């Protein structure tokens, strides 16, 4: 079984490190996942991570990259509403890495 060690507990993940249970997540676990991705979380990262998580909890799906870009632009200003900004934060792909750190399942289609 793949898992993350967290305070004496084993938090179950899939073979790529995505949490099996959305409800297992908390901000400390997010930090642990982010370390594994070599990302040091800043306020800018948290803005995206929390947006993606809220989106998932409301709509039961992770947002497509285009939707993420648009929504971040609306919420945080046009200078942040582009995929370049998101790739600066999550170099291996915002859809993949932000959802993983947010404790969500891997998006079915990486767009």
């Amino acid at each position, binding site marked *: 079984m793949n898992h993350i060690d967290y305070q004496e507990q084993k938090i179950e993940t899939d073979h790529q490190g995505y949490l099996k249970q959305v409800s297992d997540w908390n901000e400390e676990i997010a930090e642990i996942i982010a370390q594994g991705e070599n990302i040091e979380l800043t306020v800018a990262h948290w803005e995206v991570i929390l947006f993606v998580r809220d*989106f998932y909890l*409301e*709509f*039961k*799906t992770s*947002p*497509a990259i285009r*939707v993420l870009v*648009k929504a971040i632009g609306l919420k945080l200003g046009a200078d942040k509403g582009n995929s370049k900004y998101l790739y600066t934060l999550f170099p291996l792909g915002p859809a993949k890495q932000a959802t993983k750190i947010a404790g969500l399942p891997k998006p079915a289609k990486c*767009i």
Partner: protein
Amino acid sequence: MKKLTIVFRRAPHGTPHGREALDLALLSASFEQDVSLLFVDEGVLHLMPEQQPETAGAKDYIATFGALELYDIETVLACQSSLARFGLANSELTISVERVTSNNITEQLQAADEVLVF
């Protein structure tokens, strides 16, 4: 940009069709196609309020309809007479839709570049 109309004609949850239709709609919209959704016949049951698919072990794709606007899917039509047939004529629905006549639907089908039925 293609004008794509995606038709929901089956009830949700019993078959994978509705979920596939929605996946296709979101995917097409992500690729900047002009996507319209059309609910007819038992397909209008997708719009039934207070659904809790997870209690029957099904995935809650109904919640995902709430994201249509964020995907720029603005034309969402439902057949008035189908809604009436299932007691939804005056009922609040899961998402905001335009209630249209059969003639409106005929026009919608004629005007689309492509129509995909699920």
